[in-house]
């Protein structure tokens, strides 16, 4: 109307009219446009007045916001209002914090409690699951399975204990295949949702094209081992849920409901989608509701304690057995060590235990006992012990004796003794062995001295026996006289036989014998008479020897008088023995052997 008035204005101004016409025209104009002009003025006044404009807006502002939200474009509104609201809140808190605190008080407590209880519940569930699966027999089996299959323990636990779990939910724009929103269950590893959604859309289209399906027909699900992808489509959106396990059929109803809700709520944003996903952030709550999980019912709780007890008993039995066996091994090993310590020729330096095996370090004389045999006697598995033996020469008496015996090969009748490094031979041995013994024995390790005083030359045994018998012979004479006492004839005869025999034996050994015939007298009477008397007595016996055919220069008679008494003369019997003749035999071998 204003335009009309403006368009008409130039027409009216074109020619010059008389004043009466001008007045008439003015009246006419007033009649025609006055109401519009008043209306215009009214509008102008209304727009110019801040109070009136505010009053007008206040009547529609609530409806306008409602309308904007229904159009699905409430994000711009939120963005526009956010700074003002934030500033308002900040100012309100600055002025009086109690106002906001009072307002929030009724909701803060429950919100905090809910948050804490949710976190605790989640933590306890996780802890229970982990504890149960870690300590149970089933948990051990699953660990073995995880090790065998190369999957993580968590995957195996999920596979066995999970009925189903919705791990991811995609909200996809149907036309473009772009992700509008995407939610993921906790601790689920995901690929890039944009690309996964793109490929899902491509696969949808591929299937649709491949089987000439209509636009409204869609791929309902994809299966891959324990993973399933369930897909629901609305005119503008697609919900794809990635499910581990087998979800019940009514889960699809939940998907449908969520999708219908989203389609209805975001219909405008979906229809006008130009790649901006901001408006669909609010759909996250609806999608989060679809992140469900159901676990298998726990099997017969009564059986579990029994199984746990059985496992515990088995574990304890194994543990006890292991401890007992270890203790037994240790005891046996100690016995073995003790036996080793007792063994001459073995010096235990120490032992260690590595990888379940004993490592023994010791010095061992080659003539000492074999530790492997001792090990067997101790009933210790040879595989459980490593014997690190270093050879050495022991100076232990028994080992030195064994070494000497092994080197010298003493003949039968000779016995060797060893003590503190002195080697002693006792018995009768051939002269050659005796010579060898004297020469070699000092060179044997551990022998410091050699004793042959108890060793007899086998060749001189008879000679020595005869010598002993001859030298033990005492021929008695009466007091003051040089004739044999009555009854001494037998002793004289035996002496003659022995003396003849000793000369024969000496000849056999290519040696020479000298025989001293010694006359004795007791101390009664004058010494000047006793000495000649003793000589006379020796001469009498020598005469008997001559008469018996023994006329060697090796026979010599001498009188000892009272100088070499046989017995103390404190009795008649003593004096009687001193009135006698005795013999002294000396043998000179061809070569000196004894």
């Amino acid at each position, binding site marked *: 109307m204003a335009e009309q008035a403006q368009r008409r204005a130039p027409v009216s101004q074109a020619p010059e009219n008389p004043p009466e016409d001008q007045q008439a025209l003015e009246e006419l104009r007033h009649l025609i446009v006055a109401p519009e002009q008043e209306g215009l003025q009214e509008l102008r006044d209304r727009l110019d007045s801040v109070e009136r404009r505010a009053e007008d807006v206040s009547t529609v502002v609530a409806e306008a916001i409602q309308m904007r939200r229904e159009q699905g474009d409430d994000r711009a509104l939120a963005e526009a209002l956010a700074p003002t609201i934030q500033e308002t809140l900040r100012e309100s808190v600055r002025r009086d914090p109690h106002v906001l605190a009072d307002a929030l008080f009724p909701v803060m407590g429950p919100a905090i409690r809910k948050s804490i209880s949710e976190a605790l519940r989640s933590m306890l569930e996780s802890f229970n699951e982990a504890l149960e699966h870690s300590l149970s027999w089933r948990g051990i089996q699953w660990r073995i399975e995880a090790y065998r299959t190369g999957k993580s323990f968590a995957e195996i636990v999920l596979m066995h204990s999970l009925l189903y779990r919705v791990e991811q939910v995609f909200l996809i*724009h*149907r*036309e*473009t*295949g*772009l*992700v509008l929103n995407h939610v993921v269950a906790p601790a689920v590893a995901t*690929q*890039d949702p*944009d*690309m996964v959604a*793109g*490929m899902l859309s*491509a*696969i949808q*289209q*591929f299937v*649709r*094209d*491949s089987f000439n399906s209509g636009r409204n027909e869609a791929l309902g699900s994809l299966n891959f081992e324990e993973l399933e992808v369930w897909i629901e489509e609305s005119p503008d959106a697609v919900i794809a849920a990635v499910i581990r396990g087998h979800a019940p059929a009514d889960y699809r109803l939940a998907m449908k409901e969520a999708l219908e809700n989203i389609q209805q709520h975001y219909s405008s944003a979906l229809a006008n989608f*130009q*790649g*901006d*996903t*901001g408006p669909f952030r609010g759909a996250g709550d609806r999608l989060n509701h679809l992140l469900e999980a159901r676990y298998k019912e726990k099997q017969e709780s009564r059986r579990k304690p029994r199984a746990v007890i059985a496992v515990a008993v088995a574990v304890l039995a194994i543990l006890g057995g292991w401890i007992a066996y270890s203790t037994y091994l240790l005891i046996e090993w100690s016995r073995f060590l003790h036996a080793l310590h007792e063994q001459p020729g073995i010096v235990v330096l120490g032992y260690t235990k590595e990888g379940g095996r004993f490592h023994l370090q010791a010095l061992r004389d080659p003539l000492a006992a074999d530790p492997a045999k001792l090990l067997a006697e101790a009933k210790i598995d040879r595989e459980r012990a490593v014997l690190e033996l270093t050879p050495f020469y022991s100076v232990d008496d028994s080992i030195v004796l064994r070494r000497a015996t092994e080197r010298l090969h003493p003949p039968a009748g000779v016995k060797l003794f060893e003590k503190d490094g002195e080697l002693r031979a006792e018995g009768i041995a051939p002269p050659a062995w005796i010579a060898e013994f004297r020469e070699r024995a000092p060179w044997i390790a551990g022998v410091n001295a050699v004793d042959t005083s108890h060793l007899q030359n086998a060749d001189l045994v008879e000679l020595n026996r005869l010598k002993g018998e001859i030298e033990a012979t005492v021929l008695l004479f009466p007091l003051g006289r040089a004739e044999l006492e009555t009854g001494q004839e037998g002793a004289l005869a035996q002496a003659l036989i022995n003396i003849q025999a000793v000369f024969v034996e000496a000849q056999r050994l290519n040696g020479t014998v000298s025989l001293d015939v010694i006359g004795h007298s007791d101390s009664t009477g004058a010494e000047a008479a006793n000495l000649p008397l003793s000589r006379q007595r020796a001469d009498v016996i020598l005469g008997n020897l001559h008469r018996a055919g023994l006329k060697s220069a090796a026979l010599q008679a001498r009188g000892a008088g009272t100088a070499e008494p046989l017995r103390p003369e404190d009795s008649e019997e003593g004096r009687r023995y001193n009135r006698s003749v005795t013999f002294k035999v000396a043998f000179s071998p061809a070569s000196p052997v004894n």
Partner: protein
Amino acid sequence: MVQKKVCMLGASAVGKTSLVRRFVDRMFFSEIYKTTVGVSVDKKQIQVNGKDVTLVLWDIHGDDVYEKVRVSTFRGMSGYLLVADGTRRQTLEEALALSNRVTESMGKIPAVLVLNKCDLAEQWEIEASRETALATSGWSILHTSAKTGEAVEQAFMNLAQAMLAI
């Protein structure tokens, strides 16, 4: 965050996948998807005039066997890179024919014509007059080399700007 579906269109062996490989940070799906499903999807986030834009790249198999599939995969795209091999004149004609099919089914949408393999200048078969004619008819044309990376980023940037301009 703004997302845009972008299709790589062109005859077989013109270098579509190589251009994508050169452009994106890493290839998400292997080429096996292209030969089985007919498409491989990758993405790259870029900044255009200070605005974050995610390009979701649909690398479509260039074989005619997938012609039917390809038409459905165009659906919902905001723009496309029309790729031809500059050393094979025939691929340009095939690309333009493909572009006509897109226009028929979806109307006019932003596109950039990419004449790839510009590193092989001595084998170049497309005459300058032909390019001039195409440019006159409204095509935004770029010489690219997936091998050297020349103008690859620029091609995608040009397309992104064109998509955001509407």
